[in-house]
C-alpha cells in the first residue's frame, strides 16, 4: 500500500450453487483437510508421495502439515485446495416421501383410515446383536423422548430382538399376519448387512409374501437409496424416530389398499 492508501470496498463473493467448492475462510478457496496413512517409510519422500496423491485427487497446493513415523507406515495430516466443483442445484436425493405425523396423528389416522390394528414385526436379523436401534423404534420407551411403536394405540409391535435368523423372522411375520417387517442392521463390516438384507428379501419372494408386507430396513449406515436398491420399500438412517416409520407404514397401507 502507498503511504496511506486504504482498500477498496468489494463485498464478499456469493456462492454459485452450480459450481460449489469447499470453503475454508473465503468463498471458493477449496480448502480441505485430509488424513491418511501410506505404507511407505517416514521421510521427505513419504511427504512427497502424499502430495502427489493429493494432486491426483485434484487438490492444489497440497501441504503436509504433519507426518508421523509409524514404522514402515507414515501418517499424514494434509491440507489442500480442491479444484473440483459440484453442481448443487441439480442434486436430487431419493428420500422417503411422507408427511411425518406425530404419535397422536398416527393414532387418529389408524382410527379414521385403517380401522383395524396394524401389526409390525421387527428384529435385528442375521448375526447382528445391536438391539438399541430397533428398540428405540419399537419399544414402549422409545428414544430421546419419542415413544416407540409399542406405545401407539392401534399398532401391535412385535420386537424379536437380536440375532434373529431371517427364516425365523419371516415365520413370525406370517404367523401374526404382519403388515410390515422392520429389520435393523448395524454391523456393516465387509458388507455383511448387504448380504443379509438381500437374503431376507429373497426369502420373502420365495415365500411369496414380499408383496403382502411392507419391508423396511434401518441402521446408521442405511439410506433410503440403498434400501430401494436392495428391493426394500424404505430405508431409515441415523436419528430416525418411531413416528417417521409409523407415518410411512400407515400411509403405505392406505396407498396400497391394505386396509
Amino acid at each position: 500500500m502507498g503511504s496511506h492508501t486504504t482498500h477498496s470496498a468489494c463485498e464478499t463473493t456469493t456462492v454459485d450453487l452450480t459450481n460449489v467448492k469447499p470453503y475454508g475462510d473465503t468463498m471458493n478457496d477449496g480448502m480441505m483437510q485430509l488424513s491418511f496413512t501410506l505404507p511407505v517409510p517416514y521421510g521427505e519422500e513419504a511427504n512427497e508421495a502424499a502430495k502427489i496423491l493429493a494432486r491426483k485427487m485434484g487438490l492444489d497446493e497440497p501441504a503436509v502439515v504433519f507426518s508421523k513415523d509409524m514404522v514402515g507406515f507414515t501418517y499424514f495430516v494434509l491440507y489442500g485446495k480442491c479444484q473440483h466443483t459440484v453442481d448443487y442445484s441439480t442434486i436430487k436425493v431419493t428420500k422417503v416421501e411422507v408427511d411425518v405425523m406425530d404419535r397422536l396423528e398416527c393414532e387418529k389416522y389408524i382410527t379414521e383410515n385403517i380401522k383395524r390394528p396394524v401389526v409390525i414385526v421387527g428384529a435385528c436379523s442375521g448375526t447382528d446383536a445391536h438391539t438399541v436401534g430397533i428398540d428405540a423404534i419399537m419399544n414402549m420407551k422409545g428414544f430421546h423422548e419419542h415413544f416407540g411403536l409399542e406405545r401407539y394405540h392401534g399398532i401391535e409391535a412385535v420386537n424379536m430382538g437380536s440375532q434373529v435368523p431371517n427364516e425365523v423372522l419371516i415365520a413370525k411375520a406370517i404367523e401374526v399376519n404382519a403388515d410390515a417387517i422392520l429389520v435393523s442392521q448395524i454391523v456393516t463390516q465387509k458388507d455383511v448387512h448387504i448380504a443379509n438384507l438381500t437374503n431376507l428379501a429373497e426369502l420373502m419372494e420365495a415365500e411369496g409374501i414380499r408383496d403382502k408386507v411392507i419391508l423396511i430396513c434401518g441402521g446408521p449406515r442405511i439410506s433410503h437409496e440403498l434400501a430401494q436398491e436392495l428391493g426394500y420399500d424404505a430405508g431409515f438412517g441415523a436419528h430416525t424416530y418411531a413416528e417417521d416409520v409409523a407415518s410411512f407404514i400407515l400411509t403405505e397401507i392406505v396407498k396400497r389398499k391394505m386396509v
Partner: protein
Amino acid sequence: MKSKLNLDPKVIDSARSCAGRIAESMQIFIDRHTTVSTERTVLRLLGVDGVDDVDTPLPNVVVDAIKDGGGLPRGAAYWIGNAMIQTGLDPQAIAEKMAAGELDIMKLTMASKEDAEAKILPIVNKALEKIKAQTAKREDYLATIGEGRKPYLYVIVATGNIYEDVVQAQAAARQGADIIAVIRTTAQSLLDYVPYGPTTEGFGGTYATQENFRLMRKALDEVGEEVGRYIRLCNYSSGLCMPEIAAMGAIERLDVMLNDALYGILFRDINMQRTLIDQYFSRVIIGYCGTIFNSGEDNYLTTDDAYEAAHTVLASQFINEQFAVLANIKEEQMGLGHAFEMDPDLENGFLYELAQAIMAREIFPKAPLKYMPPTKYMTGNIFKGHIQDALFNMIAVWSGQSLQLLGMLTEAIHTPHLQDRMLSIENAKYIFNNARAIGEEVEYKQDGIMQKRAQFVLAEAEKLLHEIEAEGLFSTIEKGKFGGVKRPKDGGKGLAGVCVKDDSYFNPFIPFMLGGEK
C-alpha cells in the same frame, strides 16, 4: 486408607457379603451340572486337538459321541481314561480314531472311575506343567524386559485376518500399547465349537483359534523384546465355548481374557444355566494360569443409562468378584469392568463419572479394573470423539484405573484403522503424563456432588444385591435388572448342552487347579 469419597465401610461389607451368598448359592447349582463345552475343555487340556475331514474339531467329535451315547453325565475324562485303559492309545489317538469312525468309546468295557482317573493322571500333570511353564515365561518376561506403567494402554485389532492383525498389533505396540486384544469375528460366541487353524476372514474381528493365539503371542513376544516391554495379549473366554477358550489361552499364554457369563446372557442371548456352569471352569483355569479376567459390566451402559444404572454395574462387580473368589482367582487378576458412558450433554457428567470411577477404585483396591471408553455417545464427529476420549483418559489417570481400553475417535464408524490407534495412544500418553499425580493432589468437598453421588450409587447397589439375594440370580436376570435386558431361564442358546452330573462324574483338572480338593 481413608475413603476420599467418605464411603461407609459397613455398606461395602454388607454388599460384599451379600454378593458372596448370591455366588455361593449359584455355585450349588453349578456344582451339580456340566456342559458340552466344559467337557470339550477337559479334552483340550488332555491334548485333544485338530479337526476331522469335515472340519469338525476333534473335541466336538468326541463329546458329541459321548453325549449321543448318553455318557455326558459321567464326564469326558472318565470315557477317555477308560478308552486309554481299554485301547492303550493316548487321548489324541483315541479322538482321531473316533473321527475316522474306527472307534466307539461308548461301547468299550467300562473300568472303574478310580482306574480311569488314575490312568489319565500323568496326562493331566503334563498339561498342568505346560501351563505352568507359560506362566513362568510370563513372569520371566515381566522380570526381565518389564512392562508399561498403569493404566495399561489397551487397544484392539479387528481386521478379520490374523496376519493383518499381527501387523497392526506390532505397530500398536511400537506406538506404546501395553495390551493387544484381538476382537473376535461377529457371532463366534454363538458357535458351539472353536474353529481350527489360522484364519483370514472374519467380520469385524478375527476368529479365536489356538493357531491364531499362537501366531499373535509370538508376534507380541517379538515386538515386546524389541520395545523392551512385555506386551499382553487379550481375547475372549466368552460365548458358548467359554472354558475351551480359557484352556487355549492358558496353553498359549494369553494374559487377559474377557470372561463374564452375564455378558453372554444379556448381549448374546446365551442360556443362563449353560454359561454360568461354563464360566466356573473357565475361571478356575484363568485363576490357575495367572490370567487377568475382564468382566463385562461396561456393556450394561450401552443399553441402559450410565447415570441411572450405575448401581447395576457396581452390584455386578460385587457378584463377579465373589464368583472369582469361588474359582480361586486372586484380587490382582480381577479385571472388573466399568465404562465411561455418561451422556456428554449431562451437566457435571464428568463429576459423576469421576466419582464412580474413584468409588470403584476404593471398593476394589487391588483389582486391575478395566475401564471402557465412551462408545454409546460417540458419533461420526471424530474431533468431538477425540476429546470425549481425552476426558475418559483424564478420569482414568485420576482414579488410578489399571486396564485402559483406549477409546477410538472413529468408534461410531469402523473398527480401528492403524492411524486411529496411533492417535488414541497419543491421546492417552499425553494425558496420563500431563496429569499423572492429579489423583493424589485433589480432595473432594465434604458432602459435595461427588461424595453424594458415590454414596448414593453404593447404597443403591447394596439394595439391589439384597433384592437379588432374596429373589435369586436367575430370576433377577429374568426381570431385566441388568442392562435393561430380560432373558428367560430356559431360553437362549446352548441349553441343550447342559446336563446333570452323575455320581461318578469327575473333572480331573479342577481339584489341581484350585490347589486343593473341591
